[in-house]
């Protein structure tokens, strides 16, 4: 092969790489493709039911409701075909529902944990029960969604909740030196009143910065180098593009709930102390009775394992299990190892308790 041909080939290859890079960086990847129907709405919140893919007689009779965090899009649970937890669970015969909190506007700045757990969740659950015809149900809460589901499950233990799965649940805030967010939001340095007086809601750019700044080199440099190193590998590129679409699709957090998160939980650890009041009711973890599976990500820098383990010990359920998975906050459910480790265990645990 002549030197000219080699150079021409290299030029074409480089051009192709740059085209891929531009496409990935500028075009949102197709995500959340598992077929679903909208069955309920309230304000910005939406309840979706995924279309069952298994005959009714082979399905688990207990429906499963997925509750994700308030400040991110929930489609991380249904990222892309072949890499979707929702798709996996639907194929395993679960009647899967997803509660999407939507994007809060300035009119929602007064929404608190109280509203989400005692106004929105019970209504969504009521609708799910009416559609499925089941009296009992399972809940899966991830990150802030795990706080919401824990509060709900503690306040309404008689509501038919049979199984509760908590993923990377930030419930205990006592070991502040291990929780970087707790350090950043300490009242000595962080004026939450001033922030919310200016913006009303917590702006998505600040949430995004906070999450990325925990691991600045990995998020701002290594992540892009990994893409460039694998730019000729379509599988890696598509996976990276889907994750990047989710990571960059940020939404604000309602001001009042952000204040509760910082003041009541990060600063004063009121949930663990049994001092958290929701609509005048004290949240007592000892009252939670549902079967409990707590999934801990061993390499989680957002919710370190020390934020979940002590809380599980306080929860009153008779059937409790802690499942530790190597990986990060998001990686344990949406990373390359999720389909091999986390999802099969969740399915196995839930299937035994959904008969």
């Amino acid at each position, binding site marked *: 092969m002549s030197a000219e041909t080699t150079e021409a080939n290299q030029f074409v290859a480089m051009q192709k790489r740059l085209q891929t890079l531009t496409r990935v960086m500028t075009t949102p990847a197709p995500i959340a493709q598992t077929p679903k129907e909208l069955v309920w709405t309230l304000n910005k919140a939406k309840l979706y039911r995924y279309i069952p893919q298994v005959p009714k007689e082979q399905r688990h009779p207990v429906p499963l409701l997925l509750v994700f965090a308030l400040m991110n899009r929930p489609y991380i649970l249904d990222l892309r075909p072949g890499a979707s937890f929702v798709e996996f669970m639907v194929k395993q015969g679960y009647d899967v529902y997803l509660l999407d909190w939507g994007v809060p506007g300035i009119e929602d700045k007064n929404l608190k944990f109280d509203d989400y757990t005692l106004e929105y969740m019970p209504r969504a659950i009521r609708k799910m029960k009416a559609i499925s015809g089941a009296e009992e149900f399972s809940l899966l809460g991830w990150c802030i969604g795990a706080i919401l589901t824990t509060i709900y499950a503690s306040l309404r233990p008689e509501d038919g909740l049979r199984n509760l799965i908590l993923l990377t649940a930030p419930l205990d805030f006592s070991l502040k030196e291990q929780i*970087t967010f707790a350090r*950043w939001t300490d009242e000595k340095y962080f004026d939450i009143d001033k922030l919310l007086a200016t913006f009303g809601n917590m702006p998505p750019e600040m949430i995004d910065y906070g999450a990325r700044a925990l691991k600045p080199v990995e998020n701002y440099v*290594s992540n892009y180098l990994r893409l460039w190193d694998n730019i000729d590998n379509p599988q890696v590129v598509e996976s990276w593009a889907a994750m990047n679409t989710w990571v960059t699709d940020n939404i604000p957090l309602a001001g009042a709930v952000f204040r509760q998160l910082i003041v009541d939980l990060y600063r004063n650890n009121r949930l663990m102390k049994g001092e958290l009041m929701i609509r005048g009711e004290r949240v007592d973890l000892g009252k939670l009775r549902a079967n409990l599976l707590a999934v801990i990500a061993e390499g989680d820098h957002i919710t370190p394992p020390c934020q979940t383990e002590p809380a599980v010990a306080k929860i009153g359920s008779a059937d409790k299990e802690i499942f530790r998975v190597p990986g990060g906050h998001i990686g344990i459910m949406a990373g390359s190892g999720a389909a091999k480790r986390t999802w099969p265990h969740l399915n196995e645990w839930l299937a035994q308790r959904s008969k």
Partner: protein
Amino acid sequence: MSEEQGGKKFDPAEQFRGVREAYMDVWAKAMGEMVNTEAYAQQSGAMLDAYLTVSQPFKAALEKAMVNALQQLSMPTRPDFVSLAERLTNIEMRLDDMDNKLDRIISGIAKPPIPQSSRTAAAKVARTAKKNGRKEAR
């Protein structure tokens, strides 16, 4: 540029990547430790505070001016829309509760009819109760 080394192609880019990864690991660890210090928390807090101190008065003044201008033009303002949105959410909640009650009523009506034998027995009980009631009234 590459040359054979024991059957395996020598790739200088691979070596560069190895060095780069090692450097990145060290850098990432150092930065990870740095952001988890009191000094970083203090600095980032001070920066945010400075930004808010400067921007808040401008934002508040702008909002006030906008509200005044819209009111002068007899146009609805942002607070009007916010209050309307809150009222709509309350109405939605009430509608949701009514929808649920209606569902329950409909499912109650749609229940299968009581079998003939039970119906006769129930009618008998009702007739007896009525008779007893009349006697008591006399």
